[in-house]
């Protein structure tokens, strides 16, 4: 039986859900992490690096939640500060320079809402990623692997192809936020989840994402290997197809995709 949207929200947030690094380890033959935005610090809520599958090279940008408390503190619970977006942009521009396809993994409750994040221009950092991703002359593929919440998700999500895992969610804000702002009642969170059209299926039906991947889930256990194998196949066929498109055509395709939204 098809799960309700609220059940999917819970699955998308499940502590045992695989994180970006679990997929990266299984997809790429090789991965070297690169750090820092070159302005302020290294924010580990986004992992960036370069990797390969066979002969093909990729730049990888991934929102990373912790897999335990210690990691979660280090990763700021997967909520990026502006420097995480600036690090991502630095490395996406490098991808353009070296003609590498960009692969992003989206999994965040949102950009971090903190005093220092505002001081350092959270809004500016996200906006800059949006405008630059729209014109990067290299193919971009994005996977929404867990929670894709708000501008904090979109900031690494402007892509030629957007794929969601079947129980991932993608939305303008959390169902809690939606219920508390719209109805002034955060207890109506399940109802909010069920009307927000935040599931992969809803978004696919609305034409906002391009594909859904199966999660091979049994008793709340995910088969990382199987999911990663499907992702790898997607990345390779995307790379093969999009690498041959000249950059003018690539950019106008990407423009038209977002222009029609």
């Amino acid at each position, binding site marked *: 039986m098809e799960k309700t949207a609220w059940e999917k929200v819970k699955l998308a947030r499940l502590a045992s859900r695989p994180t970006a690094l679990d997929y990266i380890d299984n997809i790429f033959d090789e991965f070297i992490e690169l750090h820092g935005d070159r302005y302020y610090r290294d924010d580990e809520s986004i992992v960036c690096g370069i990797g390969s599958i066979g002969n093909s090279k990729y730049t990888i940008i991934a929102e990373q939640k912790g897999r335990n408390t210690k990691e979660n503190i280090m990763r700021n619970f997967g909520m990026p500060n502006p420097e995480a977006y600036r690090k991502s942009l630095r490395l996406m521009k490098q991808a353009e320079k070296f003609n590498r396809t960009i692969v992003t993994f989206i999994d965040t409750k949102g950009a971090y*809402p903190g005093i220092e994040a505002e001081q350092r221009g959270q809004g500016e950092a996200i906006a800059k990623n949006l405008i630059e991703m729209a014109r990067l002359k290299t193919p971009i593929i994005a996977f929404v692997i867990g929670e894709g919440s708000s501008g904090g998700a979109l900031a690494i999500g402007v892509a030629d192809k957007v794929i969601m895992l079947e129980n991932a969610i993608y939305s303008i804000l959390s169902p809690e936020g939606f219920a508390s702002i719209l109805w002034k009642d955060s207890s109506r969170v399940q109802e909010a989840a069920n009307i927000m059209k935040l599931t992969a299926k809803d978004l696919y039906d609305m034409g906002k994402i391009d594909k859904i991947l199966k999660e091979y889930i049994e008793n709340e256990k995910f088969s990382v290997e199987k999911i990663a194998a499907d992702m790898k196949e997607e990345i390779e066929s995307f790379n093969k197809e999009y690498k041959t498109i000249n950059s003018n055509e690539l950019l106008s395709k990407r423009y038209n995709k977002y222009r029609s939204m």
Partner: protein
Amino acid sequence: MERKITKVPDIPVGKWVKCNKCKEILYKEDVHNNYSICPNCGYHFRLSSRRRIKQIVDEGIFNEFELNIETPNPLNLADYSKKIEILRQKTGIKEAVLCGIGKIDNEETVICVMDGNFLMGSMGYVVGEKITYSIEKAIEKRLPLIIFCVSGGARMQEGIVSLMQMAKTSAALARLDEAGLLYISVLTDPTYGGVTASFASLGDIIISEPETMIGFAGPRVIKNTIKQELPEGFQTSEFLLEHGFIDMIVDRKDMKNTLSRLLRLHKNED
């Protein structure tokens, strides 16, 4: 400076307004004749888009783009369409932004003015579409672009559709940038969320009115997250200037003149 304002028995309703800052009771017309700035303390009242346009374009002549875009209801919310209809009647505008072409000291410019009276200037499909259309018009006609921002952020009633407007408007601005055209973003009180995280922050030049609240996350959300009080002056335009995110703070009385000078300084030599 305490003034007695307690006894105002026979003032006709609607002719007076209280200043949010100095609490002075002011005659509305005096405020309107003063750029909607408090004559007593300089507080900038929020402006409707129509009033803003009157203050900025020559003789108030503004050729609004004729776009009849219906506000969609992608989440099929029960009251949303009705709410929009009521707002249209109440405000006399169709959506949260007015877009068109006007002259500023004779310089032809594409101008978008958001309106906080319309669902707090939130950006849904129509706002995103009209702004994108305006950017494309600026490119087509090779004109500079000015956007006056006021917004609570993306319009959550439209779900993911509103999120995608951030990508759409930003992609259009990338093209404007490539075309070598000037974009001035003017931030007015308040500018937040998805608007701050897209076109509001992407101006070649970013101006703000004094004492404007600007941010990505709202103060209440931040307070709930970090569980501590926010510093005084946090997220004001003065705070943003200090931290390097805006070019200047301009009093409303000087806004037209400042924009006019900037437009002239960007004219090609010939």
